[in-house]
């Protein structure tokens, strides 16, 4: 399912003395099957964009297209459920949304709201648990008796069980330890690869953006300031740094080295392996000096 935003603007508390523009003139295309990273500092407007992706917010200007649904300003939007079923959102700290007595009830809550039969929902719950790396014995436990990491996984399973066509991830690994972080990110990546699930990752981490995404959108002060493939985005790292943004460690390291040695490697490398090969040939043979 394709999603597109064209010239979207959103104002909080519109028409009051407290009015504030959150995003303006935002145009983003997310064709089906894309893995897109949405990057920006806190307050850049990326979470406002996120909430437009399944019509939790309605633009004050511009058009949001979700599949064949159009969401415009000043129109009554009836029954957004079909849209919300197709676009699943994993919010930051999703464990804060758990409320049922058992893990199973919590996971089937979403699917059943969308009219899936209980039997089917239970089947999905088991499958979703497998995806997030938890065993079935956890189904009968109270979600509030689990560890923080397990709660996070149960909440994610609750979104996966809705079987959305697009999944939106808002800092899904915040607060997890390195192992937990890697496991969750790898899991979403394999879902994206195996099922062709469109994935939109909202993150601060340039590392994750460079590693997983095939499209990157950078936001600052409510506007899109750059978009493109990781190679395009990071081809001019100095420009990014001037805007107060981070670059991946590999890129930063390459810049540091180039400055010290006084030669350029000719291109930007986004993986340690590639960079190490280029550096090795530079320092030992000077092939490319």
């Amino acid at each position, binding site marked *: 399912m394709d999603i597109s935003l064209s010239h979207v603007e959103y104002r909080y508390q519109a028409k009051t003395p407290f009015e504030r523009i959150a995003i303006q003139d935002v145009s983003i295309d997310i064709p089906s099957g894309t893995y897109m990273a949405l990057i920006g*500092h806190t307050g850049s407007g990326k979470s406002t964009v996120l909430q437009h992706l399944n019509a939790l917010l309605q633009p004050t200007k511009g058009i949001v297209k979700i599949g064949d649904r159009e969401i415009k300003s000043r129109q009554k939007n009836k029954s957004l459920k079909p849209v919300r079923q197709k676009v699943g959102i994993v919010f930051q700290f999703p464990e804060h949304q758990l409320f049922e007595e058992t893990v199973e009830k919590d996971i089937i809550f979403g699917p059943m709201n969308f009219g899936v039969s209980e039997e089917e929902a239970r089947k999905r719950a088991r499958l979703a648990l497998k995806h997030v790396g938890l065993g079935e014995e956890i189904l009968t436990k109270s979600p509030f008796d689990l560890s923080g990491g397990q709660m996070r996984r149960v909440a994610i399973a609750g979104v996966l069980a809705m079987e959305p066509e697009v999944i939106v991830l808002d800092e899904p690994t915040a*607060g997890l*330890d390195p*192992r937990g972080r890697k496991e969750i990110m790898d899991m979403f990546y394999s879902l994206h690869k195996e099922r062709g699930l469109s994935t939109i990752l909202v993150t601060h981490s340039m590392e994750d953006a460079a590693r997983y995404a095939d499209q990157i959108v950078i936001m600052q002060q409510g506007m899109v300031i750059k978009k493109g493939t990781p190679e395009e985005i990071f081809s001019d790292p100095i420009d990014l740094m001037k805007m107060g943004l981070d670059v991946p460690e590999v890129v930063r390291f390459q810049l540091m080295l180039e400055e010290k040695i006084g030669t350029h490697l000719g291109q930007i490398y986004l993986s340690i392996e590639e960079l190490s090969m280029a550096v090795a040939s530079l320092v*030992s043979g000077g092939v490319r000096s």
Partner: protein
Amino acid sequence: MKKNPIVSLDHVSFQYEGHEQYALNNVTFDIYEGEWLAIVGHNGSGKSTMAKLLNGLQFPQQGEITVCGIPLNETSIWDIRRRIGMVFQNPDNQFVGTTVEDDVAFGLENYGVPREEMVQRVQDSLHKVKMDQLLHQEPHHLSGGQKQRVAIAGVMALRPSIIILDEATSMLDPRGRAEVLDSIRTLKSEKSLTVISITHDLEEAAKADRIIVMNKGKVFQEGTPDVIFAMDEQLIQLGLDIPFSVKMAKALGKQGIKLSKYYLSEEELVTELWTYRSHM
């Protein structure tokens, strides 16, 4: 640097009520005056329990903890809490005051510091964390990094000898994290502050003087970053990560580049590659 233990743990064990496993199991080590010690471990390794014990928020079932020469017990905790400041993980849940200045003053009020002195100390400590421009700001208008810097100011206003960062940067974005660590670094360079940072961020730990790796309630390994990062794959098995410079150095090794040491900071690695090239 002469090593003066400022905190000592002597065969300390702790078990949460209703849990079978020990959160801390027979732990013994010293923390030295003026050092930056990182305590690392995956979630649930016992590192956060340690913070609670050091501050007398929990008491060990066995063993003894000494802080600044005072044995920690029910009667000495108030004295000790004044010497050990603590910054917690969640920026919101430790902000007591309705504005920045009120929050910094909270600790001072508790210890009955006279008002004139309070005003001075609130100003000074907010100045040190670069938050003195936002004296009257309310917490919900502050970023996570700013709130944590206010928390640091609140702790520093009590002039402690030790500051514990209990995963104080784990809920922050990269910018907030950098702000907080910069503040701590500045404070540490100005006075003889002992910093204990409990973290799972290995890049943060790499800048410490010494690292203690916790696993299953025990001290798994202890040493300088050199020693710890030489553990390599073992760290990943413990649910941790290796710093970027080590990964880079390993990748270079595979390409046949021999480096002088196993662990180098990024700056050191760049310098070494530069010399390597000029020797060719």
